[in-house]
């Protein structure tokens, strides 16, 4: 296969997805390539899911400039794409008296950058607003524009919107070579050659390697691992807002995150690692996270952890985003997108759009661009009468697949219709398997539906593609 495109986007994480979707507003031929089985399965899936207000990053940096704009774009994006998003506000708390000065400096920086509603709280106000936090805290800076989202839902919705507006998605499609090709580049993959006038390097933790393939490696990525620990639902309501310490140069610190779904998450750690596959949680990481968050909120206990995961931030040397054209004609970096990359992603997409226009890409708006996608059916959230009407109309709504999260067969089917190809893809789209039994009961049913819909045998169903097989066929006769 060899196809010609105006823009080939390498990387189906939130950055690549946001750019592909932004460019799909125009009369362009666009391809989005993802090396994994589904989009958003890399850094995006393991993100903390915070939409930062932006007061804690210096306007002298690119990330510091894009974050505030990105934050502001989220209301419209959520209205169009129906991913979970709520502005719950953020507190940076002072653990030491000296931190109070830092909070004042952050407020001044944020005010200057146009971060809305920043307010310094004294100890009494902080205790009144968040009574479960440590009584040793000295005060806090409140940023009401901070929000929480389910990051994987954002990526799925961005890609769906992009596909709906003509973007060609290719998964299981790692880039093996990049070569000059006329006035553009040829992107070689196991799924064919994608020829593009512009090729965007949105490859996350792999972006320096992709840059090297193009002969345009101007930076090195050092993955910075973050471990997160999800706490039992029992603790819902422990804090109402995101709780941050004052930031250090390397990290925004270890946080208490009331997620969009209401559960409390604590983390992340920040540890530079060598191995780009190292998403292992560690006993040391757990100890560090809990030791720290107990200073913020003493009643949090490691025994409350119900699950843990780790992700890798794509940190470029220089510690800022690396966005711009390279010495290789048509090859554009959108790399080093570390925190606050998720927040900045919609602004990065606008920035890259303008940059490509400046590079000579003609942007002709499509009159039929459709900004919205349909909200995924969430049976559990519907009113009883609506549930009854749906179940009466479509029997699949009366068949429960995941009992813990009350996910019906109709929703599983819908997720497959929208690109789910793996058990994790189903899980992150529908919540099937995210509940108390962690898939103990629904895995067989989910496997059966996936196998039937994909037209493959049960043993071909995977957790997340690649070598993540779930089960083997019993007996040799089924091998054939």
């Amino acid at each position, binding site marked *: 296969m060899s196809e010609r495109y105006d823009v080939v986007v390498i990387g189906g994480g939130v950055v690549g997805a946001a750019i592909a979707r932004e460019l799909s507003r125009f009369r362009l031929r666009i391809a989005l390539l993802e090396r994994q089985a589904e989009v958003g399965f890399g850094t995006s899936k393991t993100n903390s899911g915070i939409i930062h207000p932006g007061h804690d990053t210096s306007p002298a940096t690119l990330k510091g400039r894009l974050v505030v704009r990105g934050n502001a774009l989220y209301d419209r994006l959520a209205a169009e794409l129906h991913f979970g998003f709520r502005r719950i506000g953020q507190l940076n708390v002072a653990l030491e008296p000296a931190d109070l000065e830092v909070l004042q400096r952050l407020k001044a920086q944020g005010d200057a950058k146009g971060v809305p509603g920043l307010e310094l709280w004294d100890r009494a106000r902080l205790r009144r607003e968040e009574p479960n936090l440590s009584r040793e805290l000295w005060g806090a800076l409140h940023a009401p524009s901070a929000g929480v989202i389910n990051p994987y839902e954002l990526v799925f919705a961005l890609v769906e919107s992009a596909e709906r507006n003509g973007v060609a998605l290719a998964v299981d499609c790692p880039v093996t070579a990049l070569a000059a090709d006329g006035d553009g580049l040829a992107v070689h993959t196991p799924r064919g050659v994608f020829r593009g006038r512009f090729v965007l390097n949105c490859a996350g933790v792999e972006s320096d390697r992709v840059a090297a393939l193009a002969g345009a490696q101007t930076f090195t990525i050092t993955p910075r691992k973050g471990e997160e620990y*999800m706490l039992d639902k029992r603790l819902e309501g422990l804090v109402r807002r995101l709780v941050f310490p004052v930031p250090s140069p390397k990290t925004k610190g270890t946080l208490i995150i009331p997620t969009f779904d209401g559960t409390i998450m604590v983390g992340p750690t920040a540890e530079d690692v060598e191995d780009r*596959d190292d*998403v*292992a*949680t*560690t*006993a040391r*990481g*757990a100890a560090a996270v809990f030791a720290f968050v107990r200073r913020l909120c003493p009643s949090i206990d*490691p025994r409350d*952890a*119900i*699950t*843990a*995961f780790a992700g890798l931030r794509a940190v470029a040397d220089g510690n800022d985003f690396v966005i711009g054209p390279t010495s290789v004609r048509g090859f554009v970096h959108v790399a080093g997108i570390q925190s606050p990359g998720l927040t900045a992603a919609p602004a990065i997409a606008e920035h890259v759009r303008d940059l490509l226009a400046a590079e000579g890409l003609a942007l002709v708006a499509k009159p039929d661009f459709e900004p919205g996608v349909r909200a995924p059916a969430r049976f559990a959230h519907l009113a*009883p009468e609506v*549930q*009854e009407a749906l*179940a*009466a109309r479509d*029997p*699949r709504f*009366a*068949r*429960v697949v995941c*009992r*813990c999260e*009350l996910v019906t067969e109709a929703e599983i089917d819908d997720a497959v219709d929208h690109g789910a190809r793996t058990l994790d893809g189903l899980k992150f789209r529908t919540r099937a398997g995210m509940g*108390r*039994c*962690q*898939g*103990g*009961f629904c*895995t*067989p049913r989910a*496997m059966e539906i996936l196998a039937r819909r994909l037209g493959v045998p*049960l*043993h071909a169903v*995977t*957790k*997340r593609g*690649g*070598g*993540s*097989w*779930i*089960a*083997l*066929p*019993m*007996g040799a006769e*089924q091998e054939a």
Partner: protein
Amino acid sequence: MLGRMEGDYDVVVVGGGPAGLAAAIGARDAGAARVLVVDREDEAGGILLQCIHAGFGLHYFQEELTGPEYAERFVARALDRDIDVVCSAYVSGAGLDSDGTRRVRVMREGHGIRTARSRAMVLAMGCRERTRGAVHIPGTRPAGVLTAGLAQRFVNVMGLLPGRRVAILGSGDIGLIMARRLTLEGCEVVGVFELMPFSNGLTRNVVQCLRDFGIPLHLSTTVVEIHGRDRVEKITVAPVGADLAPDLARRWQVPCDTLLLSIGLVPENELSQALGVELDVVTQGPRVSSTLETSLPGVFACGNVLHVHDLCDYVTEEALLAGRFAGELAGGVKRPRDNIRVVPGDNVRYCVPHTLAPGREHTVYLRCQRPLRPAAIRVGDLVRRKLGFVTPAEMITFRIKPDVLDRFHGEARRIDLLGEPAGAHLAGAEP
């Protein structure tokens, strides 16, 4: 009748496993004319349907049956009694009306969502397995880490193998049964690793499923890391000290492609909680009276939703009783309320039921906190009886005669499990 759900009921039973089926039969035999069992699976019988090994019914039927055979007998008995059984039906809500009517909202493929009303309700939803999150194993999150029960379903129902080279964390009964099952299917079971210094499964399973097959059981040992990106490649295990903390200096690696978890069971009480039933923080099941009635009048509980049992026969025995009391209540029978609180004492993790009444015989189920051999059970100053040995894996069934409590006046009685001096005569009820 199979598949029928119409009109109002005397008793509605949520869950069609061994507990639910026996409760329905108990209710019917106590005079309830209209009894409904609602089950979420495609066939009634519960987890028994995937337990194709023998060993069920030794106490209840004095016969050795497989799980599906045991289930089949109860389904047949229920249908013979004209009990309504609906499958592929999920109870998505329940409530109590002020006039005492109990309601369950049933989602059922092909029938939409309907509400069934009854005079009494029995909760029999069973339990689920604890997962990786409950034990905090550091490492990656590859495919190939699954509960023993899911592996059992793969092998016995779906015709799939969970892997080729299998390690098992925890020595719960399902893990032990699966060690044998997978060995018979040609998998290599490299070892069972148990955090505690004693097995969490029945002694007979340790003997018949591990020892007879030469599968090593590593006590006081746990998994400290899982390795592998897409699929499990190996695990690191380490011995633990008396404080259960791993001694990493003595850790070693075990190559395997699968890690089964058999680390305990948790009653499935989400529906009970939504109803407002009061739970015991230790059993994680409802607090019940001597008639197995929960804190909500007319709502009963039995089987693994009440507390986790180790033998199905005991579930049946308890559920027949719960059903009987539910049926009697639906028929208007009144009885004096309990007035004796049972307090778990020394080396007693929990007792069920939570209260008793004089004038009736009672069966009290309890578990100890640590093994004792020999042991004795003491109920305040009323009874003291010798037991052979006690271990947390094996539930203790203790019957209290009516006359014992008749002599008692007061509000609470403590139950203790005591060590007997070494060499004491082994007598009394074998647990």
